[in-house]
């Protein structure tokens, strides 16, 4: 619950930063904050009370076969949101790199990182 609320707060902070800041680098930082907030929300949705990581090693199963499987199932968190976040983090990294290279390209063109300088670039 606390994770969910803080995730939504991070989303709002990120959108606020993207809308109000003038510096392109700060806009990208706002995007990163938004990204992190979304990851927190997805992870919070998948949490199960008293659950642990969904890795069924022998400490969780106690026997190396699937005899005690139903007991293990009741003790892990939902694995699907974790799998989604796992890929989303790497994609977020690549998208941030793409945004930064846009910023580098703009800075080479206009010698400035202020978004207002590029107002005539709309098309």
């Amino acid at each position, binding site marked *: *619950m606390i994770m969910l609320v803080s995730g939504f707060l991070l989303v709002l902070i990120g959108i606020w930063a993207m809308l109000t800041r003038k510096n392109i680098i700060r806009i990208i930082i706002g995007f990163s904050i938004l990204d992190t907030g979304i990851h927190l929300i997805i992870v919070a949705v998948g949490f199960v009370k008293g659950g642990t990581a969904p890795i*069924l090693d022998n400490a969780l199963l106690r026997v190396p076969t699937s005899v005690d499987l139903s007991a293990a199932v009741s003790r892990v968190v939902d694995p699907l949101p974790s799998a989604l976040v796992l890929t989303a983090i790497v994609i977020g990294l*690549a998208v941030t790199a793409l945004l930064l290279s846009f910023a580098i390209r703009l800075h080479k063109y206009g010698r400035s990182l202020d978004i207002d300088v590029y107002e005539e670039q709309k098309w």
Partner: protein
Amino acid sequence: MIKYILIFIALVGLAWLLWPLTKDFSTPEQLNSIASQYVSGSVTDLNSPNVVTSIVVTYRGLDTLGEVTVLFLATAGVGFLLKKKSGSRSQRRDGSEILQSGAGFLAPLIMLFGVYVFTHGHLSPGGGFQGGVLIASGVLLMVMASTSFRFSHLLIQLTESLSGIAYVIIAILGVILLGANHFLDPRILPLGNWLSLFSAGAIPVIYSFLGLKVGAELSAVIESLSADGGEE
């Protein structure tokens, strides 16, 4: 001024939209049916202890194929935007003595750890994406330490495209060997013993190719950012 009021209204509206999602949410006491299906299926069908890995590679394998494509597109975009002009040398300085010695010692270990993480993705926390990022961080350490550090672009491109092709070939092998509903099925290889390295069918193989692909792509991103990022 009017702009800030509009932004404030937009944020309040968004918070008002998100509030019902938070208010009515309560942490569940037990897994929903599809999640417990995944957990028990990962043990009984795939012989893989790490349920997250079996979801990423098998149950949602098609999604992962799409994510790899997104990653490739982002990398291609970075490479396209930061094309290297001939003759322009960046003004970066070499790293300090400490950084250079430390990188020479640590970078091979970090890359080896990355390989360990993606080959053991089905047994322990980790997998192709994390191992690939670890390899790329080793490359980042080398790039930071020395301006003369270069690696072969041909090697990176070959690694990336060959592992992508191998991933798709393994996926299609499932269709050929096991039938039409088995795209990306890892059971084309024997399932092996519980908690051993060569178990869970083709999951370690697929994850190793994924790790190589992600590592090569992110290394290419770091290389183009470092070559073109400095001030002229």
